[in-house]
């Protein structure tokens, strides 16, 4: 066989599974290895206690909680609107998805509040930007872990543009808190169309660039194909959601199955693969980046005119100009700032497709101006639970690739 031919051959997950090393019976020479909590490729502070038999991982026990900051508890002492700032800090790579799910949940509890189309479309557009942001960081760092250095710089180049767009909208690069209960935090800045348009017209070719850099790289293919296989039933059983499920062949995307914030008006496809390995997860996320770009383009072209905040004076802050001239506006401003607004008693479980999977906020109100309970069902927590299933019985060298393919954020896991 010529050398070039080996570059294109593919290894199926089943074939790789058959080569998994089975240690001889009665072997007791085992080594315990602490991976993390400061290991660079655990992407945060995750500790995994590995039990090794030679090069084979016999058991993997994840230890989480290093980043636990009690966000759910803290939400209970903030007013409804103040708690938005905490949702940013849950998943710091997809802040806008977290803002969005919280705002949607509270708006559902409030009931008689109508979010104008412009705000809804803006939310969709920004949520997709945050998906791009998250996938770019994932792709860059994941490739870096496996040894493909160059992609990192390309990904962070585009991520920088996205962060600048966030800054343009909200004044913040990461902790945007831009999606608020009742609409958006600020009026979209003048000239945002040019900025977004310039980025989104160039972006699809950039994705092609990443694909070229990685897919033409035989080391990348060898290290990802057939690695990290786990049957779909096990993934569902373990509570895995998002791109990992789609890479196992199940076309389940909350944006399609339970559309929110007018996602039903956008034309996009669910990107799926069937190989169910690290490579398939990479292909799915690459496909999602292309679909996100499509959605952003549609949002840019069809952005409705009109208000960017709901017409709900008791909930959204009045315009500055009105405050200076109208008595009621001043009273509402005073009430909202000092006490906050009251939300009718009830409970809601709202789900959103975050870059990592199902993010669900279970919000309970007892009729006061503060949430009674905010439970955050974060995708990283559910996904990370499947880590032992991906690592055990496999080679240590593959653990980094498997770990990276899960795309978890430890802030999201520990809350």
């Amino acid at each position: 066989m010529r050398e070039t031919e080996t570059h294109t051959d593919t290894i199926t997950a089943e074939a790789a599974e058959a080569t998994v090393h089975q240690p001889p019976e009665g072997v007791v020479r085992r080594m315990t290895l602490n991976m993390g909590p400061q290991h660079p490729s655990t992407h945060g502070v995750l500790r995994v206690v590995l039990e090794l038999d030679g090069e084979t991982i016999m058991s993997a026990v994840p230890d989480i909680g290093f980043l636990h900051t009690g966000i759910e508890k803290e939400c209970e002492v903030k007013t409804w609107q103040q708690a938005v700032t905490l949702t940013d800090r849950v998943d710091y790579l997809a802040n806008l998805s977290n803002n969005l799910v919280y705002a949607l949940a509270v708006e559902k509890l409030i009931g008689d509040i109508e979010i104008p189309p412009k705000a809804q479309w803006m939310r969709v557009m920004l949520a997709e930007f945050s998906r791009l942001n998250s996938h770019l960081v994932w792709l860059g760092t994941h490739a870096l872990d496996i040894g493909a250095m160059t992609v990192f710089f390309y990904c962070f180049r585009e991520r920088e543009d996205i962060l600048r767009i966030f800054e343009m909208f909200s004044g913040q690069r990461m902790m945007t808190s831009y999606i608020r209960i009742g609409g958006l935090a600020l009026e979209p800045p003048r000239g945002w169309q040019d900025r977004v348009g310039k980025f989104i017209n160039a972006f699809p070719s950039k994705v092609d660039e990443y694909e070229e850099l990685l897919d033409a790289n035989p080391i990348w293919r060898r290290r990802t194909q057939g690695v990290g296989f786990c049957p779909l039933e096990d993934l569902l059983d373990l509570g895995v959601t998002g791109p990992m499920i789609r890479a196992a062949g199940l076309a389940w995307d909350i944006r399609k199955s339970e559309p929110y914030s007018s996602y039903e008006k956008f034309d996009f496809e669910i990107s799926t693969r069937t190989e169910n390995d690290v490579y398939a997860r990479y292909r799915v996320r690459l496909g999602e980046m292309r679909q996100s770009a499509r959605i952003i383009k549609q949002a840019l072209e069809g952005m409705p005119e009109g208000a960017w905040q709901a017409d709900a004076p008791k909930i959204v802050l009045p315009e500055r100009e009105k405050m200076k001239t109208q008595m009621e506006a001043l009273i509402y401003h005073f009430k909202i700032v000092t006490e906050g607004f009251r939300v009718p008693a009830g409970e809601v479980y709202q789900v959103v497709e975050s870059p990592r999977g199902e993010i669900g906020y279970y919000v309970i109100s007892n009729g006061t101006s503060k949430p009674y309970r905010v439970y955050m069902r974060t995708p990283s927590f559910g996904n990370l639970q499947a880590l032992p299933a991906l690592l055990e019985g496999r080679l240590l060298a593959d653990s980094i690739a498997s770990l990276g393919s899960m795309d978890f954020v430890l802030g999201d896991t520990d809350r």
Partner: protein
Amino acid sequence: MIPDPLKDHAVAAALDAQLPDAITGGHNEHAEPTLFIAPSRIVEACRFLKQEQGFVRLSAVTCVDWYPADPRFEVVYLLHSLERNARLRLKCWVSEADAEIDSVTVLWRGANWYEREVFDLFGIRFRNHPDLRRILMPVDWEGHPLRKDYPVHGYKYSYGEE
């Protein structure tokens, strides 16, 4: 007994026919069906819903503290069916004196961490759980932070005394 707001709900009716004494109430606020289940029947109810009714996914298990009411805790199971594209919420009341409930890890392996989290933050013990220990807080932590009678800044540090 099927609650009035869920009279037309097929899954609630099927569950009631299968386990007549399991459902103790429920509501359909915001079009999100919620059933109260007798704590002793939770595993059977979940098994029926998973195996016969297509609720293959357990999104999460969590808890709400209604201090000072008694029973105090509400353990919440968020179920999801992919084939029906429907969600269902099950709730069990658990009192503080007997803060114990059967674990559903026999049905979903994924319930493991969620139940550990509820144990860690609320102090509810799950019978037959394979590995019931703290998950988010340090192992030697005292108390259960998400309980309503636990101060937000904790017991250990008092900024006022500095």
